[in-house]
């Protein structure tokens, strides 16, 4: 299963570390990642992949919610097919 994780919020120390550690704990492999800083707001997008038989989508979503609650960031996770369907003909 592949999904896009987006992280947006106030820049702070340790964002990439916390998000990637949580994903590693959940057995999610980060295939691609990009991040930028815009007007003091941190924006990160990453493409994560994992074996659905060992970890469910809801588990990954719940794990990321913990990081979001702890840091005050907005973290979304959506299946990759959504972006393909909307952007690709």
């Amino acid at each position, binding site marked *: 299963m592949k999904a896009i994780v987006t992280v947006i919020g106030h820049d702070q120390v340790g964002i990439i570390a916390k998000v990637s550690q949580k994903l590693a704990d959940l057995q999610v492999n980060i295939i691609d990642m990009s991040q930028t800083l815009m007007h003091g707001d941190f924006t990160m997008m990453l493409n994560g992949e994992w074996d659905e038989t060992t970890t469910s989508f809801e588990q990954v979503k719940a794990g990321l919610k913990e990081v979001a609650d702890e840091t005050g960031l907005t973290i*979304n996770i959506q299946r990759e097919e*959504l972006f393909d369907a909307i952007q690709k003909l």
Partner: protein
Amino acid sequence: MESKQIIDTIHMISEERLDIRTITMGISLFDCIDSDGAKARQKIYDKLTTSAQDLVKVADQIESEYGIPIVNKRLSVTPISMIAAACHDDNYVEYAKTMEKAAETVGVDLIGGFSALVQKGYQIGDEKLIASIPEALSETSRVCSSVNVGSTRS
């Protein structure tokens, strides 16, 4: 993976209100026809509540995994004028109430099919259905009704 495309897609949903307006499950009621109206309605209720029992749950799962709202969950059935014609009831309001009850049980927002197709003329079931529409709609809140009066194919 294009960053701008990802931001654009997320923007469409969060700022521009892109959503999935409805998901609909179509269910045939031909196997529920019965000359006894009460039996027919029981068969209809059972079939609808069995076939659609997971619809709302699956819709919620889709909403969660894709991050896009699904505004309405809907059922759509074989036009009741065809299904009820075999019974000798004077009106079909009870069929609408059965549809309503089934919709409530499975948790969908809308159920369509309290309908007649008359583009080729009227049968007895069509007349009774149409005459039942005002009362059926006033007694229910999720039932949708229609009458097809014309077609380029008829």
